[in-house]
């Protein structure tokens, strides 16, 4: 026996090593909490590789920022002017939409309808991938120390990216929506048909569980439905590109992801979602002209004069106070602004305290068909209709 083992020593070792690995695989597959059974070796591997990745990404971004922020500033002035104009136009648009939003809120309040808000996000850099074509996941440079937990939604300004799968101390693994083990509750924007978005082995994204007799067109937008309890409702997921008859009674709907999953650099992790009933504003509707009028120069009120200290001498000339003059001027200016709102819009300075583009907070409804209408109310400055934008390099609580 001993001589046989000695003769086939290498083969015996090979079988032994393979057996151990097969055994390990079987244990991991059988256990539902696979994360815990193999966590230690994953921590080792991630800690061995990610510091290099973080270092290189840091150097790369540092040099890029130095170049673009201090040297290559061609066209920045023009871009700044364009953006200012865009802000003005969006402000007018916001006021127009706020009326619709207020109406929607009143109706939602009647139905005890709860809105879902992205309350807090954490910006993160993508530092690495899994290194395998069969595992579509990436690593980001934020982890448990930044408040991240398992199963948090990860997005970009364009749309949904995936969810946090494993969270380590300072890094996290994000499972992309095009991986075959991922699943996202989705809804078609036009027809409001619900389905499940899944990745395929080839890295494509398909919308499943839509009946074959339903009207679906290429170009239809797909949004998150909120049914998976991970992604807030109403986030853009992608666009329908191809429809074909699938297995059984369902359609095979191919979707092009809204976010470019092959070129991810910066993402936002939604660390906190809030659900609250819509606040109904009782204030009078705010007109675009009123907002513009606020930006126009005002005549400062004159200081009050103590009548007891007024000279009484006949020869002393004291101009009579005109308390109504400022108000009168302001009223005239407001009227003029109302008439010339369209002319003023491109020249007026931005309103102080106006929401900057890119603020990520967006009210998203948990039921019904509301995300499009659920934009910021005029009376609630914390709510803006902006899409989630690529992040700054720090936490972005809203």
């Amino acid at each position: 026996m001993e001589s046989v083992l000695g003769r086939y020593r290498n083969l015996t070792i090979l079988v032994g090593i393979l057996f151990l690995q097969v055994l390990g695989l079987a244990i991991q597959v059988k256990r539902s909490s696979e994360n815990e059974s193999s966590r230690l070796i994953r921590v080792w591997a991630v800690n061995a590789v990610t510091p290099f990745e973080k270092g290189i990404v840091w150097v790369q971004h540092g040099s890029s920022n130095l170049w673009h922020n201090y040297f290559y500033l061609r066209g920045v002035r023009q871009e700044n002017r364009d953006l200012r104009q865009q802000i003005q136009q969006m402000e007018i648009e916001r006021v127009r939409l706020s009326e619709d939003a207020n109406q929607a809120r009143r109706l939602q309040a009647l139905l005890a309808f709860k809105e879902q808000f992205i309350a807090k996000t954490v910006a993160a850099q993508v530092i690495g991938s899994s290194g395998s074509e069969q595992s579509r996941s990436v690593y980001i440079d934020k982890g448990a120390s930044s408040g991240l937990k398992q199963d948090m939604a990860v997005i970009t300004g364009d749309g949904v990216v995936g969810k946090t799968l494993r969270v380590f101390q300072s890094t996290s693994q994000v499972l992309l929506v095009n991986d075959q083990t991922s699943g996202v509750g989705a809804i078609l924007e036009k027809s409001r048909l619900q389905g499940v978005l899944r990745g395929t082995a080839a890295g494509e994204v398909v919308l499943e569980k839509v009946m074959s007799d339903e009207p679906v067109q290429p170009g239809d937008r797909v949004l998150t439905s909120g049914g998976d309890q991970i992604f807030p409702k109403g986030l853009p997921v992608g666009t329908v590109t191809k429809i074909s008859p699938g297995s059984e009674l369902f359609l095979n709907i191919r979707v092009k992801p809204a976010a470019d999953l092959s070129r991810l650099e910066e993402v936002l992790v939604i660390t906190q979602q809030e659900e609250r009933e819509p606040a109904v504003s009782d204030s009078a509707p705010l007109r675009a002209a009123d907002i513009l009028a606020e930006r126009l120069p005002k005549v400062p009120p004159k200081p009050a004069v103590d009548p007891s200290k007024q000279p009484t001498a006949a020869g002393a000339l004291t101009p009579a106070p005109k308390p109504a003059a400022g108000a009168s001027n302001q009223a005239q200016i407001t009227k003029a602004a109302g008439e010339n709102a369209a002319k003023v819009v491109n020249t007026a300075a931005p309103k102080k305290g106006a929401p900057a583009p890119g603020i990520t907070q967006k009210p998203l409804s948990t039921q019904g068909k509301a995300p499009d209408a659920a934009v910021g109310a005029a009376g609630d400055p914390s709510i803006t209709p902006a899409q989630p934008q690529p992040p700054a390099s720090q936490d972005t609580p809203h």
Partner: protein
Amino acid sequence: MPITYTSREQVEVYRFNAAAAILIPLVALFLQAFIPLRLHFFSIFDLPLLVVIFFAVARRSQVSGMLTGAAIGLLQDSLTHQPIGIYGIAMTVVGHGASSLGVKLDVENAGSRFLVTLFFYVVHEVVYFAVARGLVGLTLQWSWPHELGSALANAVVAVPLFMLLDKFKQRA
């Protein structure tokens, strides 16, 4: 002296110092995880596999080849979200096979290195797919054109890479 089909009387066995033995696989894993984010086509390359083949062929020890393959494969598994062991099993088989071949054949020249890499890439993919489908239940698509193209690309990269790694070899 082992019976070989080499042009020399005795095959040369090499060893590597500890730093090279640890850092080369780590750098390969790092590049494999980092570069595809910037250059998407790079994902068809499998640098950790090439490193396993190189170490196995250079050391010409089956036990060493198996252990190196298992260790690098398990680390590669750890970076994915799939169960650990799929790459480990495939790399163990490749490590054993490459070291066995290294004992018998002269695999020091560019042509043989190209063919060895081409062959073991396909072996690796076959074992990987068998384990992933049969044991783990993953749904994977096998495409011969894609696999052969990837094997060819890896074999082309292997020739200059192995020449670079030759600098770290020390005669045993």
